[in-house]
């Protein structure tokens, strides 16, 4: 065996270029596979990193309730369910935090003690919550995360017992959690969950999230069936309030990546295609090598070598290649995962990814990599080994008699070319469509300018800002103060920044007939200050923008977008028309102007074509607004000034989500960019594999056809005639591959169109086949040309 190994290594080193090419091809496929496997496993399927983490689930309600569950339903389920050993409500929301010298806003979780037990929590300092903390009269306490401890208290060792004001209510800090603990996703502040249904009408009861852990041995299906049955029972008793309401049980990992199923499927499909391409290429390269050694195998066989020994010898080469590829692939995948974490974190607020996301190669990655490498070594090595050792020894040794075996090899080579072309074509169509779609989307006009702006969210305490005039006074004073800063060009306010969210109420136009059972249209409803359009580069198309006439007490004014006109007022000018919100306070808004369409929500689907109305801040003051500052230079230079001005104006109204408007766009496109980046890699990999694969197949074919070239030349064919013969021959295979690959690409795109990441483009279906044709031509011309350079007599004698 050792001798065989040494012989194989020597043989590989003698054909170093070939060996490196084979390792490169296999590394490409394996690296992508290990990367995608590790990425999906670490983010989606690996259990949460604590004991029993595989049984922890999130119970969520229907979408209309923002995935929450009515507390009464929760309490009833908790008292009756038997599938769970933990079933606890919790809630979360952003809260104002204030210490003696600073304030901020932070996502805060209201939880019970079991929350920490389930997640195997151990405090860095102090203690966890206990049952006494939940009592209504108990002193408010707080547990903070290490990150908050550093930011608010500079990691003060005497933190325990200090007060932290949460929405102006002092809480005693009783514990600090380590950096690694951020359950359930990005937690940094945990307060006791004290909500109850006592004395609250069912219809007004609060909504909660539910943390659950199934009992050991209970399957998800069984637990889900019990939940569904229980919600059905509740619905029978409360048919109006609970009509069609049910709850779903999912993992926290799934919750963090909801609505991405098609995308994940696309990634799996692509990696499967790339792996298949890599396997075929490697197998084919090894086959060509094995066929070159056909005679050697025949000689060994004639000398008495058992076939198994010959097979093992050929397979040793594939084993070495796959092993080397596996090692390189792991290194590349680890590097790719590292980059991915940085890129993907951008899509989360504060650039914080869920705590369970591990972007390293885990033991699971190595085990899977090892198994796949082993399987590949067998798969890619078996066929060449059997082909090269299974022929008629006599025929091979007689030299030149190419019978049935060469015919089989020939058919196999042709089949491989067809498969290569089909797979490459499908993969390239999908990947290129995706990259092009994301690129086009990022270059779309979203109706506002993004560069040069700083934004922040301000929530004024309602207890102190209990009138519209107080609210407006605050906003005006901050605006005036900031506009005196030489780095500030303009300041304005909006309820909703681009690519965040908006209210989408139903509305009705005055005089419109909506029928007996009216289905009112929806509109994005955004409150802005009067100079918002000018500040953000929104263009006025008709009528006027908000001005001094639109003050409190005046008739309510509204400015609509072009998309609104396109949808609801195509044939006539909307200026002067009136609408009101359905279910609102029955006040009519008069349309005074039209601006260009603006995207307010994430750039999915019809973002830019959704109709929007803007209303004046002075006529609809809100205690929570976003401030936008147009800076004269780098917007980050006014951060400090913004912080100081707002703190001075109201210490109890901390700024949060301080970020550039460009960052909003970056965040909105982070997942798009990441996914399209992955698909760019898929596209490059498939192109390289397609070229090397077709080249390898044709080169292999030409090695086998060298004698044929000699025969044709001996019979009078010139170089051009021989080249044309092989181009036509391979052209037929190319056509067959494209005929199979194009429909597969169409089906893949069709399947993924709902994800909004890919759109059908006729151009792609023309360009990709043309590109593959070009690549194929190059891949054919090169090896054929090399063979043609041989003198006919040498080609005839070629073994």
């Amino acid at each position, binding site marked *: 065996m050792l001798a065989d190994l040494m012989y194989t290594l020597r043989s590989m080193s003698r054909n170093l270029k070939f060996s490196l090419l084979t390792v490169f091809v296999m590394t490409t496929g394996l690296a992508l596979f290990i990367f995608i496997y590790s990425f999906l496993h670490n983010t989606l399927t690996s259990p949460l990193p604590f004991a029993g983490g595989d049984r922890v689930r999130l119970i969520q309600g229907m979408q209309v309730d923002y995935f929450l569950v009515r507390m009464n339903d929760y309490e009833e389920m908790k008292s009756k369910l038997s599938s769970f050993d933990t079933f606890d409500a919790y809630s979360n929301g952003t809260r104002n935090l204030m210490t003696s010298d600073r304030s901020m806003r932070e996502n805060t979780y209201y939880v019970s003690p079991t929350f920490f037990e389930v997640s195997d929590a151990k405090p860095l300092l102090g203690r966890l919550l206990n049952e006494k903390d939940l009592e209504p009269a108990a002193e408010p306490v707080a547990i903070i995360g290490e990150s908050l401890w550093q930011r608010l208290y500079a990691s003060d060792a005497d933190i325990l017992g200090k007060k932290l004001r949460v929405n102006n209510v002092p809480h005693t800090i009783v514990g600090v959690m380590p950096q690694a603990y951020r359950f359930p996703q990005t937690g940094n502040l945990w307060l006791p969950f004290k909500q109850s249904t006592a004395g609250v009408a069912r219809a007004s009861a609060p909504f909660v999230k539910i943390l659950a852990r199934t009992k050991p041995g209970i399957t998800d299906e069984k637990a889900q069936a019990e939940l569904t049955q229980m919600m059905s029972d509740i619905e029978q008793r409360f048919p109006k309030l609970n009509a069609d309401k049910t709850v779903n049980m999912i993992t926290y990992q799934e919750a963090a990546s909801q609505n991405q199923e098609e995308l994940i499927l696309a990634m799996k499909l692509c990696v499967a295609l790339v792996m298949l391409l890599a396997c075929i290429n490697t197998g084919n390269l090894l086959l060509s090598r094995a066929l070159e050694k056909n005679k050697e195998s025949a000689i060994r066989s004639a000398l008495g070598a058992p076939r198994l020994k010959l097979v093992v010898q050929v397979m040793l080469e594939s084993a070495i290649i796959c092993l080397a590829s596996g090692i390189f692939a792991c290194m590349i995948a680890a590097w790719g995962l590292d980059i991915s974490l940085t890129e993907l974190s951008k899509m989360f607020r504060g650039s914080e990814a869920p705590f369970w996301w591990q972007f390293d190669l885990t033991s699971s990655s190595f085990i899977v990599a090892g198994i796949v490498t082993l399987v590949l070594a067998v798969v890619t090595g078996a066929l060449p080994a059997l082909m090269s050792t299974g022929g008629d020894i006599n025929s091979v040794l*007689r*030299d*030149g*008699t*190419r*019978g*049935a075996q*060469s*015919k089989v090899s*020939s058919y196999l080579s042709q089949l491989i070319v067809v498969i290569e072309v089909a797979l490459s074509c499908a993969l390239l169509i999908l990947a290129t469509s995706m990259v092009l779609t994301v690129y086009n989307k990022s270059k779309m006009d979203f109706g506002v300018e993004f560069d040069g702006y700083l934004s922040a969210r301000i929530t004024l305490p309602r207890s102190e800002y209990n009138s519209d005039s107080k609210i407006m006074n605050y906003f005006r004073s901050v605006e005036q103060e900031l506009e005196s800063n030489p780095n500030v060009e303009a300041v304005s306010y909006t309820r909703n920044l681009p690519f965040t969210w908006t209210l989408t109420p139903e509305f009705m136009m005055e005089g419109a007939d909506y029928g007996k059972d009216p289905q009112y249209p929806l509109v994005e409803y955004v409150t802005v200050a009067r100079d918002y359009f000018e500040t953000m580069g929104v263009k006025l198309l008709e009528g006027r923008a908000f001005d001094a006439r639109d003050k409190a007490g005046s008739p309510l004014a509204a400015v609509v977008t072009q998309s609104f006109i396109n949808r609801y007022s195509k044939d006539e000018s909307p200026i002067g028309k009136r609408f009101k919100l359905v279910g609102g306070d029955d006040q009519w808004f008069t349309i005074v102007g039209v601006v260009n369409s603006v995207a307010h929500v994430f750039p999915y689907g019809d973002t830019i074509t959704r109709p929007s109305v803007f209303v004046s801040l002075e006529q609809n003051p809100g205690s929570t607004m976003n401030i936008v500052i147009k800076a004269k230079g780098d917007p980050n230079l006014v951060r400090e000034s913004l912080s100081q001005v707002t703190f001075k104006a109201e210490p109890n109204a901390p700024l949060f989500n301080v970020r550039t408007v460009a960052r909003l766009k970056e965040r909105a496109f982070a997942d798009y960019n990441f996914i399209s980046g992955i698909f760019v890699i898929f596209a490059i990999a498939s192109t390289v594999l397609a070229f090397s694969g077709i080249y390898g197949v044709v080169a292999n074919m030409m090695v086998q056809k060298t*004698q*044929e070239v*000699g*025969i*044709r*030349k*001996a*019979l*009078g*064919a*010139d*170089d051009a*005639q021989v080249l044309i013969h092989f181009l036509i021959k391979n052209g037929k295979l190319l056509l067959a591959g494209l005929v199979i690959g194009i429909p597969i690409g169409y089906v893949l795109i069709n399947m993924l169109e709902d994800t909004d990441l890919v759109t059908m483009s006729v151009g792609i279906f023309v360009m990709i086949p043309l590109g593959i044709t070009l690549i194929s031509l190059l891949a054919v011309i090169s090896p054929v040309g090399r063979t043609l350079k041989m*003198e*006919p*007599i040498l080609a*005839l004698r070629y073994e």
Partner: protein
Amino acid sequence: MKTLIELKSLSKVFSTEEVDTHALSDINLEIKTGEYVSISGPSGCGKSTLLSILGLLDVATDGEYVLNEKNVSGLDAKQRAAIRNIEIGFVFQSFNLISDLTVEENVELPLTYRKDISKEERRKQVQGALEKVDMSHRAKHYPSQLSGGQQQRVAIARAIVGNPSIILADEPTGNLDSKNADQVMALLDKLHEDGVTICMVTHDPRGAKRAKRVIEIFDSKIVSDSSVQEVRVDSQESLAEEAVA
């Protein structure tokens, strides 16, 4: 008879970094139309090299080659291919049929490289050639479905289908048993009787006996060029001298 082939002081040297090997030295030879020539000699003497040069599959290092009154010594690859297609038919020891093509496609192959011949004409010529070698009943078969003797008959059909000026046969019976070898040789005899010029390299004394003229090469040189009767005596003397030496 017209001179078909004329070699003047032809030589072929294979050079490596270390040594020059003289495969052919100062070869002077004339073959007339209608001749049946056999070239023989021990292994490595240069007879196959000579046949390759005669067939324009290889080029001489020095000397002159006139084929059908045309000097073909300095032609480029494309010109040589065109002349091969028209003037020369090959029969190889290992048949060299293309395994992916059927019998009739193999035979048709040289004609497909000619521009001035219709498909119908090609079909007729293929049919005629296959009938001459008694293989028309296997026209749709692939080479792997034929015996060695049958494959060689197909190769002969391919060699004659374009009515070449000369057929060059390199050990045409080398891969055949005696029965099939006799059949192939009989076929070549018949072709010669029909007026085809044949130049054949062979080891087989029975094959050589059928030729009307035998050229013997030894150590890269023509050592005899005579009728079959003469060559027997000459070669016996040569072998005796070699043994004494």
